[in-house]
């Protein structure tokens, strides 16, 4: 056991030595930025490792202390490990924590370092996920009146406590702008947990209401509705803290828009469309196709879940879309979203078209299948893909094309549009050429070996299906690209950089950024009392200037615009 403890201490001691060594080197040459960054990396990595070690040790010891009677055989090895984690890890964590704090107090610049924000992001996320899952398990145990598990309780207590401490420390020390990724990831965790819980609640309620669980012979599990409500409650609290109280009100930059558009609007829409398609397919198979289940209850057993996914997906889609209602400017993130959804719709339709062609060829050729492979079910799944994917593509593609008509100089120069067109006619074209080569090879092979006949056509069904659909897609997008290839694509518009110097105003930077697309920084004047910004004047000053870098100073006489030289 002693050897085990020592072997664990050696790597920790080595890391401490490395940190101290680098610290010495960097203090000898304070201007050595590279060594400083390396030191910070090791310092935060050590802090993170110690945090995980101490939290595990404390949770293990507390769990053992709460219900020792639950243990039939004393696990001395785990006790020794947890003791060593706490005895060695806790003083080290306190020491390095205090050292880090001292560093922050001595150098205000450290709060702005991305490394510090990265540490807080990773540490908060780890403690959030473990705290969330342990709390859900604990509340489920309480709700179902199961035996109280001390280990679950101590995990929930220690990791939630760790998360609270990191939240408070992070918000006090780290620059809020650098914590945006952490807040968005936390929002995503809460969002996913709430969605899963809410789908479970709706699914279990529909199952109970329709009597679809009347075939249950025996159950030892706790109530499904209560279990899912616990997930909604805990996930919802996380979402409220991260999204509603924090991220929702933060700066609406590209990252914020990407989260709302891709995770919120896009995620909600894809969830609903996929679940609705599955339900549509199941219904069609039951009435027209060849269902594998005899009883309707078995065949439609997944319908409560997919109904829940449709409802929750639409709710998520509507909520996140309504957040963007006030935003007038169309950014590259909006374009990425439009093209992704349009692409998903188009690919679904193309797969559906291929499957229909394959099913038609199969139906015309005498089948050698003995069991399985229902052609009608294949046809129905293909029809579902076209019925669902087709309208999605039409709606989004028509919207994209109407925006192109409105402002062709911006939309046609978008890198997202160019990538979309390249991918579709490029990949579609490559797939069509490969299908053609394979098809011609099979034709020649059968002809030369004397096996040419109806089986040749049967072997060619996949090739023909893929060739026709990809050729249609590739040629359509090629015809569009042909007219646009002369347009120069912009890899992100070279936005202006503006420094505003004047009175404090929380909204001014955001409003100017929204109106002009410029990168705006506000420096507050110490003598700015009595002055106030005029958004229209600042916007006019920026748009009328041909320079890329500007300093705009507001004083009693009005605005003074100072152009800078870009080096």
């Amino acid at each position, binding site marked *: 056991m002693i050897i085990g403890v020592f072997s664990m201490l050696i790597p920790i001691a080595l890391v401490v030595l490395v940190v101290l060594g680098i610290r010495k080197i960097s203090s000898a040459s304070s201007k050595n930025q590279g060594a400083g960054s390396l030191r910070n990396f090791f310092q935060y990595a050590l802090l993170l490792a110690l945090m995980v070690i101490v939290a595990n040790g404390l949770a293990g010891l507390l769990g053992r202390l709460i219900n020792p009677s639950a243990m039939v055989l004393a696990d001395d090895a785990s006790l020794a490990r947890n003791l060593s984690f706490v005895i060695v890890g806790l003083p080290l964590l306190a020491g390095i924590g205090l050292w880090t704090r001292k560093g922050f107090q001595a150098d205000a610049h450290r709060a702005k370092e991305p490394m510090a924000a990265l540490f807080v992001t990773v540490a908060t996320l780890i403690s959030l996920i473990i705290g*969330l*899952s342990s709390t*859900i*398990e604990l509340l*489920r145990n309480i709700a179902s009146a199961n035996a109280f598990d001390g280990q679950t309780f101590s995990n929930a207590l220690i990791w939630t406590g760790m998360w609270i401490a990191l939240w408070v420390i992070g918000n006090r020390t780290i620059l809020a702008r650098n914590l945006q990724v952490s807040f968005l990831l936390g929002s995503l965790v809460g969002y996913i*947990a709430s969605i*899963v*819980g*809410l789908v*479970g*609640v*709706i699914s*279990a*309620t529909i199952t*109970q*209401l329709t009597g679809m*669980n*009347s*075939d*249950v*012979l*025996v*159950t*030892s*599990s*706790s*109530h*499904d*509705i*209560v*279990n*899912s*409500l616990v*997930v*909604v409650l805990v996930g*919802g609290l996380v979402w409220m803290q991260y999204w*509603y109280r924090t991220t*929702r009100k933060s700066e609406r930059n590209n990252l914020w828009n990407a989260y709302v558009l891709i995770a919120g609007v896009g995620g909600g829409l894809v969830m609903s469309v996929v679940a609705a398609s599955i339900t549509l397919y199941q219904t069609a198979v039951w009435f027209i196709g060849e269902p594998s289940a*005899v*009883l309707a209850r*078995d065949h439609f057993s997944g319908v409560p879940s997919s109904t829940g996914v449709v409802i929750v997906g639409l*709710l998520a889609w*509507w*909520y996140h879309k*309504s*957040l963007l*209602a*006030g935003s007038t400017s169309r950014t590259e993130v909006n374009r990425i979203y439009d093209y992704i959804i349009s692409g998903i719709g188009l690919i679904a339709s193309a797969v559906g078209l291929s499957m229909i062609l394959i099913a038609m060829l199969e139906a015309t050729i005498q089948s050698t299948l003995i069991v399985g492979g229902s052609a009608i079910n294949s046809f129905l799944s293909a029809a579902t893909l076209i019925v669902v994917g087709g309208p999605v593509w039409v709606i989004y593609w028509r919207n994209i094309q109407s925006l192109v008509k409105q402002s062709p100089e911006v939309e046609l120069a978008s890198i997202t549009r160019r990538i979309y067109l390249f991918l579709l006619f490029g990949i579609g074209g490559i797939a069509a050429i490969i299908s053609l080569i394979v098809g011609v090879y099979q034709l020649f092979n059968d002809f030369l070996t004397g096996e040419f006949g109806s089986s040749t056509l049967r072997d060619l069904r996949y090739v023909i299906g893929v060739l026709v659909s990809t050729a249609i897609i590739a040629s359509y997008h090629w015809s569009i690209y042909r007219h646009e290839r002369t347009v120069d694509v912009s890899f992100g518009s070279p936005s202006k950089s503006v420094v505003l110097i004047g009175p404090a105003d929380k909204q001014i930077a955001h409003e100017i950024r929204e109106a002009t697309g410029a990168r705006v920084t506000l420096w507050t004047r110490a003598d700015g009392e009595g002055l106030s910004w005029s958004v229209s004047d600042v916007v006019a000053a920026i748009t009328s200037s041909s320079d890329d870098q500007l300093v705009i100073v507001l004083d009693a006489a009005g605005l003074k615009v100072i152009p800078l030289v870009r080096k």
Partner: protein
Amino acid sequence: MSDHKANKVLLIVVAAIAVVALIVSVALNKPAKQLDRTTPEGAVQAYLAAVVAGDFETAGKWLDPKGNCRVVDLDRAYFANDVKISLKSSSESSNSAVVKIGIENSSGDPFGGSFTEDHTIRLVKAANGWLISGMPWPMYECGGVK
């Protein structure tokens, strides 16, 4: 729609779903219907209920004495505590019956995921009802202990 209004509507919708779910949970939560013990389905239900409750002595009484499986085999069997067992189908002839069941196990993730495995239980007709033959769930090995 403004931010504020959207948040309000979202809160109302989620609260309404939760309230309806709670009402349904309280009003319609009934224990599984007890089937007639003289039928094959009822015999299987009695056996499974005893197994899940940990009462192997009672469960053992539903096993065919001519078969290989004994109560000691049940003692050695492993199954998850959190299970839900559904009746899939049943068929009966003069001396034998087949009951198909679906066993839903918790996957152990925090979101309450589960997976279902299907099992077939065979029964033989005895003087006073039905007895389970073969190697019924949760046993995967019988006759190992003599």
